[in-house]
């Protein structure tokens, strides 16, 4: 069990607003049933399950959200989106966090500089987000 100090001030609120703006979703529609995590084919690779990840967004915990690997493991298969009983486009939330992460650090990945072997190993979705980081 770890310890976390939680503050929900203007920075946290700004993070929540940004995720909601990019994804077009209301993160507070989520009532933490976990059906998204239960159906996710890659849950076992995620250090935070999908619903835990959404919970971090609900609390505006930007650093802990960006530190998780959940949004990079997500393959945008939309199983969560289709199954969510609260009509949340969960995959859009994942994409929003990827966008935020990449916009803050646009040079984090320069696709042109990546060696071919890495390109073959990287999840497609990471590359797609890289191409999209300045659009939308």
């Amino acid at each position, binding site marked *: 069990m770890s310890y976390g100090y939680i503050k929900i001030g203007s920075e946290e609120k700004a993070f929540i607003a940004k995720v909601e703006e990019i994804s077009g979703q209301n993160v507070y529609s989520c*009532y933490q*049933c976990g*059906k998204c*995590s239960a*159906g*996710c084919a890659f849950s076992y690779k995620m250090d935070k399950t999908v*619903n*835990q990840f959404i919970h971090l967004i609900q609390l505006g915990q930007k650093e802990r959200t960006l530190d998780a690997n959940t949004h990079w493991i997500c393959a945008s298969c939309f199983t969560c989106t289709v199954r*969510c*009983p609260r009509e949340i486009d969960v995959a859009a939330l994942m994409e929003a966090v990827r966008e935020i992460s990449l916009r803050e650090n646009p040079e984090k990945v320069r696709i042109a500089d990546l060696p071919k072997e890495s390109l073959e190993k990287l999840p497609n979705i990471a590359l797609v987000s890289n191409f999209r980081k300045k659009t939308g």
Partner: protein
Amino acid sequence: MKIGVYVCECGSNIASTVDVDKIVEEAKDLPNVAVSRVYKYMCSDPGQELIKNDIDEYNLDKIVVAACSPRMHEATFRSVLEDKGLNPYVLEIVNIREHVSWVNSDKDKGTEKSMALLTGAVYRSALMKPLERKKVGVIHTALVIGGGIAGIQAALDIASMGYKTTLVEKTSSIGGKMSQLDKTFPTLDCSQCILSPKMVEVNRHPNIKLLSLSEVVAVDGYVGNFKVKIKRNPRYVIEDKCTLCGDCLPVCPVIAHDEYNQGFSPRKAIYISYPQAIPASFIIDPDDCLGINPLICTKCKEVCGPEAIDFDMQPEIIEKEFGAIVVATGYAPYPIENIGEYGYGTIHDVISGLDYERIVSASGPTEGKILRPSDGKIPETVVFIHCAGSRDPSKHLPYCSKICCMYSTKHALQYKHVVHNGTAINFYIDIRTAGKDYEEFYQRAAEEDKVIYIRGKVSEVLEDGDQILIKGVDTLSGETVELHADMVVLATGITPSEGTKEMASLMNLAVDINGFIREAHPKLKPVDTAIAGIFIAGTATGPKDIPDTVSQASGAASKACGILSQDELEIEATVAIVDDSLCLEVVACVLKRAHIALLRCK
């Protein structure tokens, strides 16, 4: 003519977004206004006194009150006028709370709108004429529609207060869903044992006329004087003659699914749905029977000693008048086959909550042994999935069905009581145990009976050999989990029954977006409908457990008796009248059965 204008602050409810002093001042300049005042709480005793004193002092003949909705205090202010000898209908209410201050935060705009409404009201007030209330007689009998526990309780209560009551039940027996339940939470007392004495009492009560296999097909009239047509379908067995000997059973060649046992056991075309059924008589299902049409089999008739079988029975229409009506037409389980990922209807051992009630019941198809449907084995692990259909606005029901947390806990506990070393696992989103002794019941299941609770919604249920694979999540540990079970019970959500929908549309009762009948006021008039004289009880108005259903039924009964106990009723004087010169004879009013208008229209 002298008009008095009274503006209410409603504490800060109105005053915070309407400049009450300003509109009071401006009102003084409107035609015929003799006095215009503001007060903090116009509905309070001093507020009412203020108006009364002014009526004396200024000789007022009309009153305008700018305050809350007329639904709240029109009656209060009308009686102020009446006390002072004025006709109560020369009162005009301006709703500057619900229509202005509560829906607006800009004080200037609020003031402007209030003034516009108030001005209109003052002009209208000048044109108002006194009205006289009409009196009508009351028919001292009640109609209760639906014979579940709600209808049974309502009928018994009305009858025991001395009024003749007709109880109309669609199926062959009263009892409703409660008759299918095994034990009831939180006391685990046997459902039949507490229900059947009430059913017997209905049968015996001199003031109750029970019409089974019957449906209401038309309702006309108005409070105190409803004219109702009831269609009584044939039973093909004469109730009074049938002795329940059962001699007909072995000879009937037809085998059909037994609805009472959720299709898990067979029945004949002639049958009684369960031993305690009321009316206590066999029935022939015309869809299954070979003898009714065409006449190819008369085996049961041949063996029936008391000659109770009559293949020629015809439906009959009964016309009756009633003073009050209670609608108690109940609920239907959500069609869980709609939840594709849970496999109901395709995986044999995935069953519904009501299916489970029959399986666990001593009077059920397995005589109370918990055996799974596919191969009759005792399941070693049973998974109970909460919220099956409920709390899912995206595809199923948006609301919480309220009873299923409790009945799933009951189911798990019953399983552990029968299969001591078995494992019962409940997957839940939230545990809702708001009710007397309900939390304790849940704690007992977890602490004493070792029912396991996993917080998370199941994503998929798959057939895996002769077992079932559950794919779920434990949101508390943050892990996705998979496990095998031998049987899965879905905590089926509940919806308004077909009969509830039919009755609502037949009587023009308002329904909510989910189809449940709407109360006249969700808090303060929970058993009234918008139509005077028609009351509601039980799950026809929304998900409810038995205690809530029964208390609501008693409430509806006492409200109905409030009407039946009067010799005449005053009918509201503000009724629609038909202007012959404008009427196009489209008869939309007739089709909508606008009762009171029809009274006046030729």
